[in-house]
């Protein structure tokens, strides 16, 4: 099925069309990635200079209860974020996909509207809302649910971090699910009903399996950036609930330990890569069964 250029001319056109992408991938993706991988095997001087001494210390150092704990915590924060995003995003996408074409486009626009503002600014807005003197506490005081001396501390907690991540990434989930659900062949649903499947059964046996690719790509789109997040935990966690991304950024800053930072990045990449591959594989065998 691959597109095979037949003439020289076609080949030339193809090369020209691909070159910006290739250039981009090589210079801003492949080369930096190789640099990180090489760095992760090197040593550094106390003053942060890279020392060409190939070794595995940086990886061995990571096998430390402290770092593993951060890794696992980040994993669960990302997992919770993904699950909640799915619970919010899928029904939303399902509902949107069942609207008229005109309405659909309006809703899509509305969903993407917040993207026009930088996410750091949007996160700052949450910082204000969640603050002790923030609007949420003021609302609770106005509604006499709490009194003024007893305001809630929403900000700088794990919950605030998860909420911030959900807020930012739920859009990716909605869009991925929407693409999948709107491409669903309606006649299959009718067929299921003709065969006396009730709505719940239709959903579970027809809609869900057919829209699984959307759920999968949506979940990956949410999980991966949440796992490596460091701006959100920094801003909404107040530096008290650091995640693996903060650990990496600390190595490149204060700790002046680029090799260790690179090793953590590499470990993160490898784990996510294999995780994703396994996920796809599990899914394909699941598909084959059904």
């Amino acid at each position, binding site marked *: *099925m*691959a597109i095979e250029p037949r003439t020289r001319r076609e080949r030339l056109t193809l090369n020209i069309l691909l070159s910006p992408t290739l250039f981009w*991938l090589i210079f801003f*993706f492949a080369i*930096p*990635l190789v640099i*990180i991988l090489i760095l992760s095997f090197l040593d550094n001087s*106390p*003053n*942060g*200079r890279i020392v060409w001494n190939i070794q595995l210390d940086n990886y061995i150092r990571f096998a430390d209860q*402290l*770092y593993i*704990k*951060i890794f696992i*915590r980040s994993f669960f924060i990302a997992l919770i974020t993904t699950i909640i995003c799915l619970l919010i995003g899928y029904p939303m996408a399902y509902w949107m996909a069942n609207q008229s074409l005109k309405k659909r486009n309006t809703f899509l626009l509305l969903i993407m509207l917040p993207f026009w503002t930088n996410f750091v600014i949007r996160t700052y807005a949450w910082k204000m809302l969640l*603050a*002790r*003197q923030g609007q949420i506490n003021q609302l609770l005081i106005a509604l006499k649910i709490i009194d003024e001396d007893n305001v809630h*501390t929403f*900000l*700088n907690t794990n919950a605030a971090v998860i909420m911030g991540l959900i807020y930012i990434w739920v859009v990716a989930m909605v869009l991925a699910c929407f693409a999948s659900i709107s491409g669903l062949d309606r006649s299959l649903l009718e067929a299921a009903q003709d065969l006396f499947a009730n709505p719940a059964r239709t959903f579970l046996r027809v809609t869900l399996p057919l829209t699984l*690719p959307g759920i999968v*790509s949506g979940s*990956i*789109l949410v999980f*991966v*950036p949440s*796992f*490596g997040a*460091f*701006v959100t935990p920094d801003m909404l966690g*107040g*530096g*008290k*609930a*650091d995640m*693996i*991304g*903060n*650990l*990496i*950024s*600390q*190595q*490149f*800053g*204060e*700790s*002046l*330990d680029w090799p260790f*930072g690179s090793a953590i*990045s590499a470990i*993160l*990449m490898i784990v*996510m*890569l294999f995780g*994703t*591959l396994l996920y*796809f594989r599990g899914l394909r065998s699941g598909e084959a069964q059904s």
Partner: protein
Amino acid sequence: MKKILIGMLVILFVIGVAACGNGDATDVSGEVETDGGGEEEGGDGEVGGTLYFYTWSEYIDPDIYAQFEAETGITVVEDIFGSNEDMYAKLIAGVTGYDVLVPSDYMVAMLVEEGMIAELDHSRLEETISYLDPTFTNPPFDPNMGHCLPYFWGTTGIGFNWEDWDEAPGSWAYIFDPELAGNFSGQISLLDDMREVFGAALIYLGYSSGTTDEAELAEARDLVLGMKEHLYSFESDTYEDLMLTGETRLAQGWSGDIFVAQAEDENIDYIIPQEGAVMWVDNLCITVDAAADPERLERVYMWLEYLNRPDIAAQNTNWVWYASPNAAAESGIDPEILGYPAIYPDDETFERLQYLGTVGDALDIYSRMWTEIKTE
């Protein structure tokens, strides 16, 4: 085919995002442009050209740039860093083109060790050096000012609000003692700065702020972990705003920042605790690549001289509200600043101040324990 393609794209995205995890933290952008100095030469034997000044934000009266340009024809281009380590990371990654840097004490020592800043030619600065307060002319991090001139100095103490106190909270115990900290539970901020937090905790425990002893550091770590439940956040950039809005009532902070908040709310004040505090000196240092080029070096020395001219140093101090090591400038400094013990502490308080100092290999211990503090 399509499925494989989508799969590949997702995988690329995965690797991409994972790889970007550290992107923003270390913004190692390319080389700074340096021009040979051929830019429009002013008349009257002016030198002209451009000087690249790498410094902290809002750390100079911006008028001084224009005044300097009017007098010498040299345009100063300012670039900003947020922490010593950010600046250092950029330089060690090979970024060149800066002429003058403004590192703090311990960072000067590191830059000297790594051969990234040039020696100072005292013969070219005789008059300038004569203006300086002798307290600052032989700092431990740079003996006899072998490399840098002191620019400003200050302390890291406690910011508080007079609404809460009859007597100023003159002890680190108000932050580090869990019971006392409990009075302001959830309303205390510490700097998001490894060395400063350890420095303050170590001083409270009676140790040296730059210790390399693992047991002492462990004690300091446990101290911070013990009060963490009362902590609002680790914050280095906006803690003075948090005090202004009333989110926090106590903050570990740099003197000048707290005074910025005080200008808006006079109830906010700053104190150097009785146990002592970290003291820092920011310095004017010449990069080795500027020193290698006589034309650039000429501009650099003119800039160092200009910043230390008593009237300019005074003007600058009146703007930034940090203490100037320039003794000759004092007659021009606002008496309110000079008479303020939190900016110009008396001798007895001065005795209790400590530099952070470099920690060498112990940086790994600091790092690991800092991670414990930040994540536990």
